């Protein structure tokens, strides 16, 4: 179970999150939709511990364990994964080395031995097939010189490799063409299982045609203003955010 309770966060004395609460049960997919500036991306950053947001208030619990005071790497190793809206370049660092380092960091955190290089290679090849990606991808530097679509796919590759419990997809659909969107969605559906918890942050309903959420939340002014089933996303697409502005549930 992933629980966010009364989460408040600010940056440079400006309040961005104003008491947001959300609970995702194992096996569930939730989607958060909302206009620009509603605080969606801030939510993703605060969950993963971005240093821009100092001392957020409230609770974030994963299976009952409070993770809000943990360092970003500790949260990641507890099983929280953020697929970045804008993945960051790391010139000179080879993609597969980076992945192996991340993989082994988690192994170490769990007091497990480092993965055998051959096992790692077969694991990564298996995941590449899921995403229909070429092996050449692995020897390129992390996100450096990648197209927008390649960066997003790389995020999903990392997700598959690190096998987290909680996944936040921050506008993973933006910058993807139709074919890539399908591949990425297929990979996420492949990943989804009884014990995974997925939070999709998006502007558009189109991703939700491929990945069907159990619950859709509408976010405005730093909190959730309405929640419903997947039909809410369709209504939203039809009527726009304005229709939900003063309609707090």
């Amino acid at each position, binding site marked *: 179970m992933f629980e966010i309770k009364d989460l408040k966060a600010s940056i440079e004395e400006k309040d961005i999150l104003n008491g947001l609460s959300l609970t995702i049960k194992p096996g569930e997919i939730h989607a958060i939709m909302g206009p620009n500036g509603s605080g969606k991306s801030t939510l993703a950053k605060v969950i993963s511990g971005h*240093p821009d947001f100092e001392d957020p208030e409230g609770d974030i619990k994963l299976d009952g364990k409070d993770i809000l005071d943990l360092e970003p*790497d500790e949260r*990641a190793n507890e099983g929280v994964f953020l697929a970045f809206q804008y993945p960051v370049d790391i010139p000179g660092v080879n993609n597969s080395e980076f992945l192996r380092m991340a993989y082994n960091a988690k192994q170490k955190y769990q007091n497990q031995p480092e993965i055998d290089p051959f096992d790692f290679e077969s694991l990564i090849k298996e995941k590449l097939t899921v995403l229909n990606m070429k092996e050449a991808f692995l020897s390129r530097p992390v996100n450096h010189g990648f197209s927008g679509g390649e960066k997003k796919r790389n995020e999903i590759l990392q997700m598959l490799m690190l096998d987290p419990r909680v996944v936040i997809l921050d506008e993973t659909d933006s910058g993807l063409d139709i074919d890539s969107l399908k591949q990425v969605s297929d990979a996420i559906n492949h990943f989804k299982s009884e014990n995974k918890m997925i939070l999709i942050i998006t502007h558009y309903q189109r991703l939700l045609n491929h990945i069907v959420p159990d619950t859709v939340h509408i976010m405005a002014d730093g909190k959730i203003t309405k929640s419903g089933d997947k039909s809410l996303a369709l209504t939203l697409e039809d009527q726009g955010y304005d229709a939900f502005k003063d309609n707090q549930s």
Partner: protein
Amino acid sequence: MSLKEFSDIANKEYEYGFKTDIKTELIEKGLNEDIVRKISAKNNEPDFILEFRLKAYKHWLTMEEPDWALLDYPEIDYQALHYYAAPEKPKEKLKSMDDVDPELKRTFEKLGIPLNEQKKLANVAVDAIFDSVSVATTYKEKLMKHGVIFCPFSEAVEKYPELIKKYMGSVVPHTDNYFAALNSAVFTEGSFVYIPKDTICPMELSTYFRINAEQTGQFERTLIICEENSYVSYLEGCTAPKFDTNQLHAAIVELVALDNAEIKYSTVQNWYAGDPKTGKGGIYNFVTKRGKCLGKKSKISWTQIETGSAITWKYPSCMLIGDDSIGEFFSVALTNHHQQADTGTKMVHIGKNTKSTIVSKGISVGKSVNTYRGKVQMNKSAKESENFTQCDSMLIGDECSANTFPYIDVRNASSNLGHEAATVKVSEEQLFYCQQRGISLEDALTTIVNGFCADVFKELPTEFAVEATQLLSLKLENTVG
């Protein structure tokens, strides 16, 4: 935890800061003609060396210490230093490694340079130099079978005076600069390498320099000669104990490559950098390194990983005299705490169709100052020549600084030059990205810096590339958080 807190730089202990307790034979402090004669006498040198020294000393007296580098340090009192320090040794000559003082052997073992026949590094021949003398050279006989000479400089003076006469000072004359003149007057030890015609040196050659005695200068000379169609890869490593006072290191390295010969010269410099908090102590490193590509299609390649010293003043250069010759300079200079480095290269194109490549990566952390200074000169005779320069700086934290001074002087119309430069700051976003993948802040920083240096690391001999990566991560420890 964030980059904003970079100023909180912890004191990672300098791993090699121990001092070896050994009886040291010193020549009294100070510098004058008498001292120069004494140094020469200690080495039982032939007259031509003494004459060379005295000439250099007299010239040095007429010179002034250069002040154009972006370095700030108190005036050096050249009379307050010892110019000769050597571990006391038995009167008789050492016959084998077993005769080496066990304390010295332990010292080098601690530094990761075992000298015992059984334990010595595989496929790397080492000349171990302790203060002013060479302690031991491994694999000498094996190399001799290939005609390769690898021995202490003093031994070369004794055994191969003709080669020394011909080449010593031919690349870096004693008049070249203040520190070169000083070295030429008082040099003690160093390594000598001679690769005969048509010979690929069968193993890596390496010299390990250790300064042990306090208030001492180390002034070694290295001379490497590669005859036609030959190849050698050579590496030097350096460490020194921690002292509150500064130690002076003013070395000369001369390389000569004849037709089709190639010399690959790599340095991993980790001299004591001074106290992290106060900046007290540390090595003042003033080094003149130059190679002459005398022959057609000859090649000289410098790779340096500079992480130590309080002050670094160093410009490994290439004189591209032979037609179609190639000069390369690959450098990573990392400065932390109060370190200051002014380093770069000089590529002088003289022959036709000569090529040079410069890749410099400067990383500044803490309160350090890191300067790249480089010159590319293409003479009128250097038709159709090419240079490519890339000098990048990386800043970590906001109290350090990086400077770049590229000088370009082209005197013909058929040559080509390319210059790229970039300054990057390790961003919070990069660090956060790594952390979000479970990688700790410290490992993230090391990873990003290593990535920044990847173009240079790949030039190092494999045996040392790993060492360089580890050294860098050691140097970066506790710089974040």
